[in-house]
């Protein structure tokens, strides 16, 4: 094959990913400096578009609320693993970023008095856990769609530069400075180097490694693998959120907003079992608690259907009027994917892998940071991350519903501001290293020139199935050790994977094969983190260590990838000191 061309582009700021975090960052950075966004898909096709229920902010539009209550709920929801300075920062900034979205034109649903509509959501309470509060700001059940389109519209208005359908291959650094990324032009083929003063990964989450999941095809956690390969750590990857209400059989999401509007879960006896697991808020406990309760009911033989392998989500009693007005997307999804008219019958649901709490470690400025138990955090020059790809850590061991859309707005905005400032402070670009992108270019050319041995599809199937079986809602030493061995075998097989498509134009075979390589890399970090963590906290539940162990495990995991592909673990303390209020000390979590 002839040499494939390499084109070099120069921008002050380069953002990889055009979901909510990437676009919010782009809007901010482009005010001050030359900014470009690289995206695997056209921006409005990014997965933020699928977010349903809403974005949390203590606007007090319906009833009195307070950012400190929001902060407490988020810390408790995180099972005390979230960093309290970051959580305070996010919850205080929430009203501001939501109001900005309204000003940009986001079509929020409205209350009678014309203010933004707010609904109840799991884990969000008033007065430090007394009862559920209406805090989640929504555009019907299409909040993510409304948000992503609004942000993209603003980017169009402000003439942000986009490179759509470009796929990132390698994070480029010159000594200790990140200087951009190497990417592949999906539509035409060809390598592109984006040389930047500041580079942000807003590359989304990683739960496509699970067979049953709520995520888009593109959510293959590419940014995490590229970060690991560049020698930087990833944080808390063992914390994978299983959302309680995925549609049975396919995993597509049914928003928690259904329960926020008064829907509830039933077991095969028609019992509202959540009252036994969360005596105060029942079905509105946080997601890890509800998912585990459902799994426990099924283990004890109280699941529904001939196999006893799902539960029922009842909402017909809310009334067809409210369902069509506030939950129209859910009605559609249930009808299309479960053949259920949810104004008349319950929706069959099971927990579905949904969200990555872990990610690239960042601080309050969305700078990527290095650190350890005794090493203070220190930013990597020129490298930023935001959104699901990052770990600020505002979600700790379990994220509250409607805090993810908030996370992407807050840290997208702040990251954009800081990147612009940083870029302005550098008189010139730090030069590219010698042979920039060598590794990424070789990876692609060897696939294009290689011969097909093993196929991508078979390896991927086994990855998804084994991760679900061995590293899912419940985990033990035995299942995790088994998964470690499975991954080793899959990585060996991956080395022999070849692609059938050798063309340059829209080579999906190439992209999916590269994605699989990324997934294998960080799956090892998920499993190693989970195997080492001998406790149960938030979404990480070890049957063999069912209690939280603050003495030994109140700390963040960090995973590094060694030259040979193996994972080395390190740890760092939880930042317990908030910015202005007293620390919330760890307590037992009861909902």
């Amino acid at each position: 094959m002839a040499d494939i061309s390499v084109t070099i582009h120069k921008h002050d700021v380069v953002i990889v990913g055009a979901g909510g975090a990437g676009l919010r960052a782009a809007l901010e950075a482009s005010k001050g400096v030359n900014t470009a966004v690289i995206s695997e898909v056209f921006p409005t096709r990014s997965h933020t578009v699928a977010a349903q229920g809403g974005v949390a902010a203590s606007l007090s539009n319906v009833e009195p609320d307070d950012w400190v209550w929001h902060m407490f709920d988020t810390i408790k929801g995180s099972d005390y693993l979230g960093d309290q300075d970051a959580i305070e920062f996010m919850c205080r900034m929430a009203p501001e970023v939501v109001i900005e979205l309204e000003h940009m034109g986001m079509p929020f649903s409205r209350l009678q008095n014309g203010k933004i509509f707010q609904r109840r959501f799991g884990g969000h309470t008033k007065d430090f856990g007394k009862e559920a509060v209406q805090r989640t700001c929504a555009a019907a059940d299409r909040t993510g769609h409304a948000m992503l389109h609004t942000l993209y519209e603003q980017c169009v208005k402000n003439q942000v530069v986009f490179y759509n359908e470009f796929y990132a291959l390698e994070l480029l650094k010159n000594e200790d400075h990140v200087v951009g990324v190497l990417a592949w032009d999906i539509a035409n083929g060809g390598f592109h180097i984006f040389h930047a003063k500041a580079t942000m990964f807003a590359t989304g989450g990683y739960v496509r490694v699970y067979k049953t999941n709520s995520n888009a095809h593109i959510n293959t956690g590419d940014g995490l693998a590229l970060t690991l390969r560049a020698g930087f750590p990833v944080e808390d990857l063992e914390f994978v959120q299983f959302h309680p209400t995925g549609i049975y059989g396919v995993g597509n999401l049914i928003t928690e907003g259904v329960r926020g509007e008064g829907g509830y879960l039933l077991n095969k006896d028609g019992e509202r079992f959540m009252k036994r697991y969360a005596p105060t808020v029942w079905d509105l406990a946080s997601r890890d608690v509800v998912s585990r309760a459902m799994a426990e009911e099924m283990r004890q033989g109280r699941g529904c259907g001939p196999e006893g392998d799902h539960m029922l989500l009842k909402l017909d009693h809310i009334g067809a009027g409210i369902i069509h007005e506030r939950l129209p997307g859910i009605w559609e999804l249930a009808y299309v994917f479960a053949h259920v008219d949810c104004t008349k019958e319950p929706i069959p649901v099971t927990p579905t892998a949904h969200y990555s709490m872990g990610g690239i470690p960042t601080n309050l400025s969305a700078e990527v940071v290095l650190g350890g138990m005794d090493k203070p955090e220190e930013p990597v020059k020129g490298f930023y991350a935001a959104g699901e790809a990052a770990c600020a850590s505002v979600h700790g061991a379990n994220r509250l519903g409607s805090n993810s859309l908030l996370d992407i707005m807050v840290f997208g905005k702040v990251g954009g501001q800081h990147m612009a400032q940083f870029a302005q402070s550098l008189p010139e670009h730090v030069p590219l290293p010698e042979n920039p992108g060598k590794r990424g270019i070789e990876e692609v050319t060897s696939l294009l020139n290689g011969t097909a041995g093993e196929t991508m599809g078979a390896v991927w199937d086994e990855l998804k199935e084994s991760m679900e079986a061995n590293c899912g809602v419940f985990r033990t030493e035995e299942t995790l050790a088994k998964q470690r061995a499975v991954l080793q075998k899959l990585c060996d097989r991956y080395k022999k994977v070849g692609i059938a498509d050798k063309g340059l134009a829209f080579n999906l075979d190439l992209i999916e094969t590269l994605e699989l390589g990324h997934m294998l890399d960080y799956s090892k970090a998920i499993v190693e983190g989970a195997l080492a963590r001998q406790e149960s906290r938030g979404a990480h539940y070890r049957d063999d260590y069912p209690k939280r162990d603050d003495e030994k495990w109140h700390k963040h995991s960090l995973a590094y990838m060694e030259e040979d592909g193996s994972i080395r673990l390190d740890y760092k303390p939880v930042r317990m000191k908030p910015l202005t209020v007293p620390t919330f000390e760890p307590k037992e979590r009861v909902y």
Partner: protein
Amino acid sequence: MLKTVTFSVFRYDPEKDKKPYYKDYKVELRRPGMMVLDGLNQIRWEQDGTLAYRRSCREGVCGSDGLNINGVNMLACITHIKDLKDPIVVQPLPSMPVIKDLVVDFTDFYRKYYLVKPYLITKTPPPSDRERLQSPEDRKKLDGLYECILCACCSTSCPSFWADPDYLGPAALLKAWRFIADTRDEGADERLQIINDRDGAWRCHTILNCVEACPKQLNPTEAIAELKKTIIHRKF
């Protein structure tokens, strides 16, 4: 043995093929509720890795996988295989240049979307510390408009869009009306100037293909009628 259906898929690789052709694949129905996208994935992952198409959310909200299936534009990810006549003929969206197989070039479609100024235009500054107010009744005017996913199923089903390369098309016009109908927007004048053109709203001949094609049950023809009414009202 599992029941199979035949997918007859449009194939074209610009680097190899002089002209497009159709290739037949057998797709096994392994579980109830399989969608056309599941069928395409089965082909790609198990039979023929060279097949190219776009897809992402696989639940009808990202708008990536608009295709022409048995002659009608729809989203592959929310179209049940069992509802279709066998063999299932899968083609790219009509009238767009083909990049490869089922992947078409959206440049012209997006250009027309940008032309209608698809963003809130305001002159009055918003309140500094709170949201603008909007009554639920006014907000309701956006239902059926804001949900557009830019899949292009509507525009590429429209004979006027096929015939007139400059026609803005139903998707862009629906987007224009989404903003003009928004009580917060103050950009109607500049938008209507663009739309009051032979290649704008007036090129719509109410053929209604767009309404039938929309996978989100939106009604671009009605939005275009509203645009026409507004233009006339402003004149007299």
